[in-house]
């Protein structure tokens, strides 16, 4: 995640991290015979979807204003 510079790929990486968490949660849920983990995984899924959608929307909005392929191009704000 940290070595990628394309914002879209970074977004995908965040989703991958959330999926890894989901897998962990479900595995623990199974191992501990406890359903809270499954509940947690469902919540994570919806949240991940919401985050992905908002992220895509923001990036699409930026692409409309200017072409952007690298996060280093986002350097309007510095001080």
């Amino acid at each position, binding site marked *: *995640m940290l070595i990628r510079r394309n*914002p879209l790929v*970074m*977004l995908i990486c*965040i989703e991958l*991290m*959330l999926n*890894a*968490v989901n897998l*962990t*949660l479900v595995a*623990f849920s199974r*191992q*501990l*015979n*406890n*359903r*809270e*983990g499954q*509940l*947690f995984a469902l*919540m*994570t899924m919806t*949240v991940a979807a*919401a*985050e992905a959608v*908002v*992220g895509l*929307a*923001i*990036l699409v*909005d*930026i692409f409309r*204003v*200017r072409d952007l392929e690298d*996060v280093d191009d*986002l350097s*309007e*704000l*510095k*001080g």
Partner: protein
Amino acid sequence: MIAAAQVTYTAAQAWSDLAQIGPIVAVTVALLVAVVVDLLLPRGLRGPVVTVIAIVGLVSALAIAAYRLVNGYGGPAYFRFVSGDAFALFFEMLFALIGVLAVIVSSSYVRRRGLYEAELQVLTLAAIVGMMSLAAAGSLVTVFLGLELLSIALYVSCGYNRIELPSQESAAKYLIIGGFASAFVLYGMALIYGATGTTVLSDIATRVTSDSAGNPLLLLGVLLMGVGFAFKVSAAPFHMWTPDVYQGAPLPVTAFMSVATKAAAFAMILRVFNYGLGHLGPEWQVLLAFTAAASMVVGNLMAIVQASLKRMLAYSGVAHAGYILVGVLAGGRAGVAAVLFYLFGYVFMNFGAFAVVSTLSGPAGDGDLYEDLNGLAYRNPTLGVLMSVFMLSLAGFPPMVGFFGKVFLFTAGISAGWTWLVVLAVLTSVVSVYYYFRVLFHVWSPLPEAPVRFAFGPVRGPVTVVLLAGVFAVALGPLSGFLLQVGLNGAAPLLSGR
């Protein structure tokens, strides 16, 4: 296989559960009504009506929370996933108050900048629902949901000025770094769930004893959550996003974000670390002590060299996160109460300062340089005097609330044995006087010869807010005894059962 547990859920239980989250329900209903109203009304009426609905919703949330706090109602709800205790009610009142101020400021700001009004208010309400759920969380699941609700609403608010690249850049940066932090927090939560077999905080508190310190799952979970939380409160060394995001976002959003997110994130830290993982104190304290020290040093030193007021306030926010962490580290009744007290005071002084800066913006952009403040005390005496009050309060001068807040935090820190940290905090706050006084210098400098970049538009709304915040910042000083009592009351639920 997993056996199905029997659920018996009665009407009485349903009503009492709903009452426990009364303030959250009030804001949610206001949010839904606002969305529908925004669709049905003619274009010209939408903005003002939605603003009024938002204020009504927030004020009723405030009233419900105050009523329940005074009458001492409160307890767990929804199978202990949520709690309506005094701690939650304290923060719910705080968020409702900030919400009212933020809604008024943004209403005037969007009109001056020619942005669409209704949706920003809806987003603010959504963020407040998230913050309230965070403060009321009784389970890691609820903590995560509240955290994400507030973050996602704020990502969108940051990019609200869709035609300006800085605003969008701020949104993108906040989104990517915020998403990264959330994933960290979530992974920590998953590991803690794996180690304890429950997500309910009160169960975690009983299952995690000081013997659990050797459990690698638990330790890794604490580490990951600590990193994620540090991102959210913008504590160094995880603060790099703060200045960029604060500078790019529309000013009312920055003002709201700088105080409300910080308060919500500290509510979360207190709930999860001081309450849920209280017995692992020695482990997470090392982590937080390091971030506290780094935040105070980095925040104060970097604030000196900034040219933009927004960036200066952002770094000052980093420094204040460091001070508040001292109270978190101290823990116990005194520490938690001091944190609540300081957050309450900090919210008003910092929001007030941002609200003053927001009056300087016009259709052309935001005036956020020191020079834009030149002669403010003569152009608009009310704003000038109040800006000075906020700066003195942030710097921690005696009659102001900031002074009492620091006193409570640092005495709690010393009595808990964090002397070196308190010494560092005092030294760095002496440094901070320099950049707060630089603002005062510009505010009270004579009127510039050249025409000012930003003349005042119709700013009655923000002036009212600034006045309100100023009154709070001044009045809370003498009233600090009372507020500390409220804070102690709010701290109690976190410490019972131990």
